[in-house]
């Protein structure tokens, strides 16, 4: 007979899960494996709420395996380390991000690009190397192979640093890969949400001129005066959009709704690069003439490898970059999800797990 989530592993754990595509989260008893020789057990302090969590609990992409315990922006304290673990000791402050497994032997893994390994396993809603389902960070603790655990740098707060584990690396990785780090170049950030606001901060730290591109004029003050963007472009203002044509070296496009690429491509200079990070549920329309006539490109990127995630955390600690968060209790998660669906958050919810998650 198949084991239940509570009995399939030796150690009982408590968390919150969605059980169907209503996405409603509620208390959930399950279990986790013993701490193996390569593992680190993390008592979870905080967990960021990523838009992917919302998509997954509602089965927007069609591959959710219920019950789903979401959460892949996890910060906590190492409570156990296996005998082969060299990088961490008990008491260390650590993070766990989007990935907790890969084959560790393919070309991508050898290049520290575990995120592109064909056997890459997500922190939740995926099958781990032991053949059982992974449950994420909306829970008391998590057991993770040391390769997928990150050292949380001194000076980086646990609560506002947690979203960097997904949002941070998601923008940092393509900014490095596509050479957006040359001071003085002009970066456009389309969309000002969880990803976008971190992209502005990291872009400024790279010395870039940053323009926020948004459909909401009321975000201008935020963008410029609080986040430090150099300018703000409203996509519905044709005069301003026209004046900005051909001015940007790169665009980080964080918008996940289906949206028009044509006006964004027009903002790029010749050889300009638009990197799309949002995950729309339908294909976008790609006009070919701007690509051909201006040798422009559209690329994508998917989080980052473990080495560059650590590099990103260290970079953010050095430049005092954290996410702007709204701290919530575990039992506020369902209303937070409703607000997230309406983008009503500046700019990431973070669950105060240690102080608010307790069995009923």
């Amino acid at each position, binding site marked *: 007979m198949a084991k239940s989530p509570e009995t399939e592993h030796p150690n009982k754990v408590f968390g919150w899960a969605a059980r169907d595509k209503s996405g409603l989260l509620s208390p959930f008893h399950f279990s986790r494996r013993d701490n193996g020789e390569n593992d680190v057990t993390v008592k979870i302090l905080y967990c960021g709420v990523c838009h992917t969590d919302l998509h997954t609990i509602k089965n927007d992409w069609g591959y959710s395996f219920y019950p789903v315990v979401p959460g892949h922006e996890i910060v906590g304290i190492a409570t156990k380390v296996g005998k082969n673990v060299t990088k961490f000791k008990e008491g260390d402050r650590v993070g766990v991000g989007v990935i907790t497994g890969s084959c560790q032997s393919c070309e991508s893994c050898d290049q520290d690009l575990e995120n*592109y390994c064909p056997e890459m396993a997500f922190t939740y809603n995926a099958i781990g190397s032991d053949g059982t389902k992974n449950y994420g960070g909306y829970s008391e603790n998590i057991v993770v192979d040391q390769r997928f655990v990150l050292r949380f740098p001194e000076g980086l707060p646990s609560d506002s640093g947690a979203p960097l584990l997904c949002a941070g690396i998601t923008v940092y990785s393509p900014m490095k*890969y596509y050479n957006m780090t040359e001071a003085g170049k002009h970066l456009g950030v389309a969309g000002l949400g969880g990803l976008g606001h971190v992209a502005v901060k990291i872009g400024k730290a790279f010395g870039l001129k940053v323009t926020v591109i948004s459909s909401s004029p009321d975000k201008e003050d935020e963008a410029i005066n609080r986040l430090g963007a150099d300018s703000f472009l409203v996509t519905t203002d044709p005069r301003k959009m026209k004046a900005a044509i051909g001015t940007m070296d790169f665009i980080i496009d964080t918008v996940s709704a289906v949206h028009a690429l044509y006006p964004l491509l027009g903002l790029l200079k010749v*050889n300009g690069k638009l990197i*799309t990070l949002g995950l729309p549920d339908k294909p976008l329309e790609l006009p*070919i003439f701007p690509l051909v006539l201006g*040798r*422009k490109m559209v690329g*994508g990127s*998917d989080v980052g490898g473990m080495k560059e995630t650590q590099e990103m955390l260290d970079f953010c600690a050095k430049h005092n970059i954290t996410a702007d968060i709204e701290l919530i209790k575990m039992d506020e998660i369902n209303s937070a999800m409703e607000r997230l669906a309406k983008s009503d958050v500046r700019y990431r919810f973070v669950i105060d797990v240690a102080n608010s998650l307790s069995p009923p």
Partner: protein
Amino acid sequence: MEKVLEKEAYGLAAKDESGVLSLFCFSRRETGEKDVRFKVLFCGICHTDLSMAKNEWGFTTYPLVPGHEIVGVVTEVGAKVTKFNTGDKVGVGYMSGSCRSCENCSDGVENYCPKMILTSGAKDFDDTMTYGGYSDHMVCAEDFVIRIPENLPLDGAAPLLCAGVTVYSPMKYYGLNKSGMHIGVVGLGGLGHVGVKFAKAMGSKVTVISTSERKRDEAINRLGADAFLVSRNSKQMEDAMGTMDGIIDTVSATHPLLPLLGLLKNKGKFVMVGAPAEPLELPVLPLIFGRKMVTGSMVGGIKETQEMVDFAGKHNITADIELISADYINTAMERLAKADVQYRFVIDVANTLKPNP
């Protein structure tokens, strides 16, 4: 007041959106001090000529003398011309002028200069219309003239001036020219067949991707491709998933990108050189989960056009052509519209274009 041009010329022009070409007499400027004047021997017919003749893109000014795959022999050079002499075999491609001072021009990519002047159908710096190579002779600024290698037959070399550089430039720019790579070429027409030849010469494994089996024998046995995929055959496509470093897509018709993106390895590059008029559907997930990219490219700068033609000379690469007489032009255009040519028509201008019909 209109500027008076000095030298008589004649050619074939489209006079309206029917795109039908007929004899047209006009004039060209005198040879300026930096100009090269040459008698046109051959001119390739690019699909762009057809699109422009029929005003498919909405910016054609009539009368239009098309032609930007032009090869000929120099008859006169201006006093300050240093690179060419009378008798030299030369060519002119898609552009005949640019601002010479912007960042693109300084980087050798005049093709992306915002003031780039098309060889055919554009307003020149002196406010006159440019008339292309379906004509008896050309006069062009030295900086936009290409030397044709001695060993290349001129008729087969002409299409390289557009088709050749259009595939060569992105192969080089995107690093898809390294030996041992696996390159896909989508579409086997004017651009595609030259793409296969260049990629083979660069040491790549080449797979042609086409909509029908019909071209398999050609692709493999005559053009030298290593493999052939029928895009509608899902088993063939699935077996080839994740195998290609780059894909050069020469197809101008609307077509699905998702199966083609699936053929790329992680970090693979998809280059559009065809120009579909309607947007294509872009599935975003393959770009994100494989860090793949989609981009485009248009002809090439002058320096790389020369480099391309020298590369072709070194590897004996020419286009596969059907040589036609000037009076066949309208039939050729009809056949081109149906892709009924292997793989480029070239007009035997010197021998068949006459001032009096």
